[in-house]
């Protein structure tokens, strides 16, 4: 990774000394060798300096006009959510539409939905890193930020959905601490596994994201024009001096975190799926859940990445860094995971029939043709049918279509969790206890408000932090490749 270091070094170190007036606006182009005839990851032969200026510029210049209304609107949503949570905690869980038999509904649906969204970030930053998928560099920073914010949204729901939140957070109940009563949490409960899985995932994702930020924070510190910015970024840049030793440690740490995060990508959603798979509710008690949940999570996560990045790319003119090729590649991931999800839906039905349990079979028949058929078929339309548009390259290359599909995918994935949770619960073993769940306005607006929280955090993120990993993008430019005609320390730039 020495090349990356060099490239980043150029960006952070040398840029300042160049005379921008005399620098050639566009570099001279040599034809790359045949093996490098791929479309470059940064288009238009943008120079390293341009990359730094463009990305760092987003958080240095005042925010464009649309940012403030967007922020106020999102913050309003966030405040609404927190108010409703306060109402919920002060009055009782009954302000939601939950009942017997649907003791979980939108709460856990939202939890799984947000956790699922979080998956794309870690997958992009860790798994694709280990697989040497260099195209990840343009999107990994914002995807990881999205992960963290999604986990923050996800974390709220399982906490506040409990009847007595104050005890849920009290050490000794869920958090295993030795206490005088010698009562431990129930380690057999998937909900407890959730606590560990999600908190581990959140912590590792945060550290991974932060470690990746350090060189860019140093860049921002060095470019800072006010003392406050210098201090702020400097504090979090941890004294980064761009030395070889720093780079060496950094690369090692980054690799370790990538290694740590990779199993988490698989484990978190597997464990979340255990909430259902370990139970004996027909429709939940399914061994296919772990792989199918992970695929679904990646599916929805990439959907959300596209939902966020396609507008971001246009609004900040990042077409050269986040190229159509990036979008297309993500569409392919969506197509692949969407197909896995579709296969899983089919396989669930097959097993329900093949397994021979009439209770299981009924649960699936009821899903497709019962009172919640509308939800099931919405899910099928969104998740199984819509991704198949991406077999067409033209559609993959049309951002507006991709953006629309990405939203449809997320709607579909929300419905998937709703269908799994509510249609299974509302009619289980004893017909006498069958019921129906209808959300209340508090359910609806709490969920809507969680998007406010998510967007608030994301808007603050693009306001204050480099939304794209500057150092990493520079490492994948042709200039950073010593074998590239434009690359290496050849003194041509």
């Amino acid at each position, binding site marked *: 990774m020495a090349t990356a270091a060099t490239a980043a070094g150029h960006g952070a170190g040398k840029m300042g000394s160049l005379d921008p007036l005399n620098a050639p606006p566009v570099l001279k182009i040599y034809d790359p060798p045949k093996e490098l005839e791929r479309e470059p990851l940064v288009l238009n032969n943008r120079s390293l300096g341009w990359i730094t200026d463009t990305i760092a510029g987003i958080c240095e210049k005042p925010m464009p006009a649309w940012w403030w209304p967007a922020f106020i609107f999102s913050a309003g949503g966030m405040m609404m959510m927190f108010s409703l949570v306060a109402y919920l905690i002060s009055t*009782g*869980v009954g302000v939601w*539409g*939950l009942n017997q038999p649907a003791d979980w509904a939108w709460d856990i649906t939202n939890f799984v939905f947000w956790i699922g969204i979080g998956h794309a970030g870690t997958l992009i930053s860790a798994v694709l890193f280990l697989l040497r998928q260099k195209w990840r560099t343009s999107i990994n920073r914002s995807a990881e930020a999205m992960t963290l914010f999604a986990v923050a949204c996800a974390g709220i729901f399982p906490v506040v959905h*409990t009847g007595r939140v104050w005890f849920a957070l009290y050490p000794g109940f869920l958090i295993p601490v030795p206490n005088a009563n010698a009562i431990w949490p129930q380690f057999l*409960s998937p909900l407890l596994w959730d606590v560990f899985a999600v908190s581990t995932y959140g912590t590792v994702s945060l550290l991974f994201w932060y470690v990746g930020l350090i060189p860019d924070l140093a860049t921002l510190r060095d470019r800072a024009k006010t003392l406050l910015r210098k201090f702020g970024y400097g504090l979090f840049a941890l004294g980064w001096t761009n030395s070889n030793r720093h780079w060496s440690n950094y690369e090692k740490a980054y690799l370790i975190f990538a290694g740590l995060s990779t199993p988490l990508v698989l484990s978190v959603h597997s464990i979340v799926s255990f909430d259902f798979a370990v139970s004996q509710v027909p429709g939940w008690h399914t061994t296919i859940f772990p792989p199918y949940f992970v695929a679904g999570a990646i599916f929805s996560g990439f959907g959300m990445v596209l939902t966020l990045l396609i507008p971001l790319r246009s609004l900040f003119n990042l077409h050269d860094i986040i190229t159509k090729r990036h979008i297309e590649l993500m569409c392919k991931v969506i197509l692949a995971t969407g197909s896995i999800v579709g296969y899983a839906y089919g396989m669930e039905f097959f097993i329900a029939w093949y397994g021979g349990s009439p209770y299981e079979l009924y649960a699936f028949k009821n899903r497709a043709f019962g009172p919640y058929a509308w939800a099931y078929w919405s899910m099928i339309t969104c998740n199984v049918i819509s991704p198949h548009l991406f077999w067409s390259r033209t559609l993959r290359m049309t951002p507006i279509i991709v953006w629309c599909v990405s939203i449809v995918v997320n709607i579909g994935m929300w419905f998937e969790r709703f269908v799994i949770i509510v249609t299974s619960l509302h009619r289980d073993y*004893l*017909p006498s206890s069958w019921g129906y769940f*209808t959300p209340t306005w508090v359910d609806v607006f709490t969920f809507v408000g969680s998007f406010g929280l998510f967007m608030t955090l994301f808007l603050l993120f693009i306001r204050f932090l480099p939304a794209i990993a500057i150092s990493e993008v520079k490492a994948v430019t042709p200039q950073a490749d010593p074998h590239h005609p434009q690359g290496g320390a050849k003194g041509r730039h």
Partner: protein
Amino acid sequence: MKTIPPPCPEPEVGPKYWRSLDQLAEKPEFRQWMEREFQAGASLAPEGEARRDWIKLMSASFMLAGLGGFATGCRRPEEHLTPFAKQPEGYVHGKAQHYATAMPTRGSAVALVAKSHDGRPVKLEGNGLLPGSNGGTDAFTQASLLNLYDPDRAYRHTKAGADVKIEAVRDLLTETGRKFAANGGEGLIFLAERSSSPTRARLQEELAQKFPKSKWFVHEAVDFAVSNQALSVLYGADVQPDYQLENARRILSLDCDFLGTEAEAYRLIRGYAKGRKPAKDAMNRLYAVESLMTITGGNADHRLRVRPTDVVRVAAQVGVAVLELLNEGGELASTLKSLSAGTPANPQWVAACAKDLVSQKGNAVVLAGYTQPLAVHLIAHALNQVLKAVGPVVSVIKSSEARNDGTIADCVSALQAGADALIILGGNPVYDAPADLDFSAAARKAKTVIRWGYYEDETSQMASWNLSATHFLESWGDARTANGTVVPIQPLIEPLFAGLTDIELLARLAGIDKPLPLDLVKTTFGTDEAAWRRFLHDGFQEGSAPKSLEASTAQLGKATTLLAAYRAPASSDFDVVLHRGASVDDGRFNNNGWQQEAPDPITKVTWENVILVSIATARELGIADAANASDGQYRQPVLKIALGNRVVEGPVWVQPGLADKTIGLALGYGRKVTGRVGRGSGFDAFPLFLKDSRHIATGAKVSKVAGRRLVAVTQEHGLMEGRPVIREANLAQFEAKPDFAKHMDLEAHFPHYVPFKAESDGRNVDKRPQNIYEHPYDQNPSTVSKIHQWGMVIDLTSCVGCNACVVACQSENNIPIVGKDQVARGREMHWMRIDRYYSHDPKSELGSDAAAEDPQMAVQPMLCQHCESAPCESVCPVNATVHDDEGLNVMAYNRCIGTRYCANNCPYKVRRFNFFDYNKRETDYASAQSQHFFNFGNLYKGPFGQNRNEAPEWEIVKLVRNPDVSVRMRGVMEKCSFCVQRVEQAKISRKVEVGNSGDVAVRDGDIRTACQQACPAEAITFGNVLDPESAVSKLKHDPRNYSVLGFLDTRPRVTYLARIRNPNTEIVDAKIEGRSGPDSLRDYERHRHENPFESGHGDAHGEQKHSATPVQKGAA
């Protein structure tokens, strides 16, 4: 700052207190002295040595002040432990005491044992000492406890709306008595509820002597006395029947819901269940001819659905057939023949039924329902005579009720003739008198209306004097049970609101000086002190029941004459049946939250009444879709029922099994003046209750009205969907294969059946499949008790679904009332529920729709199954629900954080979550649905709402709580605990009893759970499954024993005995051909393509076919 204490308020009346003679004299010096903050010398600055002292003193006092202030701020409110000045006999603090008492009912009483904690009655149970009683009661009795602590009961005596003291009331009564003594009671009219009290009868006699011109009328809206009247016709004397149904082998019910809303239903259930043990020639058979779908019809082996006006025709038709078979022709037969003209019943059905009744002559009984006219009762009693039921099944005893001068209709005519004073003893005639009598207008003609009642209700509004009545737990009294046994009513608590008993009221009128109710009762009883003490202790007077009359004294001739004169009503348009509300009676339980929330046993509707119509009628009216509420919210169309110009409007409910063109309306709802609980519940059906037609009105017009109304039900789905939740068979099938229930559902298909490992220790006697996980008890055997392992068996053949257990459980376990809005949202809190399933054979020739009109019904009490391998326990992240060493699945409320995962994972859906602080809910508008988008109805609104818990009325509501059971806050999951408090008490008592001998195993039968205790059918058995001799162990070995959803291997400790029906093989039920087994069984066969009676099915996979496999050998 100078603080002037506010002047101490002086009482306006009463003695004045003074500090000194100066104050008394109001001298100015004294006033000045009073108003000075510091007394003389206090404001002089100290000098010299004293300065130091002063500073010392001041610092010390500042410190003390600080400390004191701090300490005072932290102190708990001061409480005083006041020892008894005189220790009551046998009192141990914290230990409950039990007293025998009784609840008076219409002309009868329920003998009770009341449990009292620190002078506060908290639970009512039937008196098991009474001969023939098993301690069972009905739901009304269980709920009557809540009435005692009802903050809306009449808590004051009023005169023209203004409060008066009880002394004034006493004066009034004495005065009234004196006044009428002068004119012999001219213009004095009594209107009373029925009563069986010997003391009251005695006082009534005294009054009659003292006021010979006074009149005494009796009014009950739902009056069960029609049966007595019919019997009295036969016997020419004032008699009443008393049934020993345990001796009946064949029972024909003529619109008689004797298992549900009929008088003394709990006693009849007991007899019925005793006679329903599945064995050849020992099991009774029940035929029901009925118009509404009732518990009785649902439990019947054969049910004939006819319009209410046709019941008399069918009764006559059966009568003719019976008389023919007995070769007893004569005038009765010909009269009946003409009465039976136009009968809708299938002659084959009637012939087979009659033949069956005659074949069991001497053990066959015919019962007629209170809604039916006298003619039907005459036929029923006449048939009982010819079937020789009088004696073995029916005892005819002299009526113990005092004489009266007529009904409310006579009362109204007497009032219209002019009256000085009308004294209303109980009841609520303004609300429930026949509408065409216009009672309130007539009553207003009386110069004074004195009303003694338990509530301030519709009648109170027109009364000039309202006297607050005592609850039976507050008053001395006596009563007679249905067979005439005298039982005491003894108070357990001082009257909470200085109420008055009826006997004191009558005694004062009669001019008895200082009548203490206790003395009045004692006077009636006699002077034998030892007998009196025994009377109070046992709760009944032995041998006080009158002798049964000889059957031969009956004269059928009089009945025949009456029947010949009777013209059966012609049905036109719609027939309306006005029946007793299964939850609120005739309105007397209208303000009782437990009863309001107890679902109707058939419809499962709570908090209101509905207009019941049949499927075909609904289709005719264009509202057939009303039965279909796929979104879980029953927004029912509204119907208008018009009888002439009298109109009733209410939400419709499509009820399978109801007769066509028949409307069922429950009485007791739609009260205009009631307490906060009952307000807004249901609609008033009394406008259609007329003096001639009473319970059955004909010629009603029905039309649809715009709009829909939300109806709250506890069970939304009524079909078993082919799932063998309730396993049933006909008697013949059962005899061919007694253990058929074990060969149903998926457990019949498991590849390896191995005897349960722990069979020797008796934990589970069923043969079980092996789980891939180790049984939790095998993981850590040392923690498993070798003394007690609790288990329960529920006999589905005995259980009729009467709700007594549901309300008993609510009373015992402090289960909150949630209100209509919450029930509609599916959040009822009952730990015990009765699941009611219909089944019909869709393969029958008539097609599923028509078959659904005549469904079979089965009920199943469902409560926490206390699974050994409990699915709820492993998913609770905080270990709040765990197993104890005696096999109970226990809830640690303090530990629960309310994730509700346990409820999701419970296959029986018996866990209940406190979505709100239901125990702090407002009583207001409990029955009204939430009127507003932002309004969650009647709930505690947290810090955003007013905390009604601070209202003083809550102090009285709290008193009903059982101190042995904690009251749960919101956010906590709860469920049946097997009455762990009773288990623990029994264990402690046993330990105390046996001392050091170490034999601490509780004797079988010492623990009775609340549901078991209340069950009149003895369908529930609880006990130690480790003891092979215990009743529960024996039942667990019954071949009918099965676990619901046994294939899940949750190993429930609650198991069920399969339900056995006993149909007449000669009968093809109603119009449905080929009903060879219970419909639910046929439905199961259709869904699963298998039959537990096919040879070898189910048992084949394990024990027989594979018995030689190595697995089997190894396991054995």
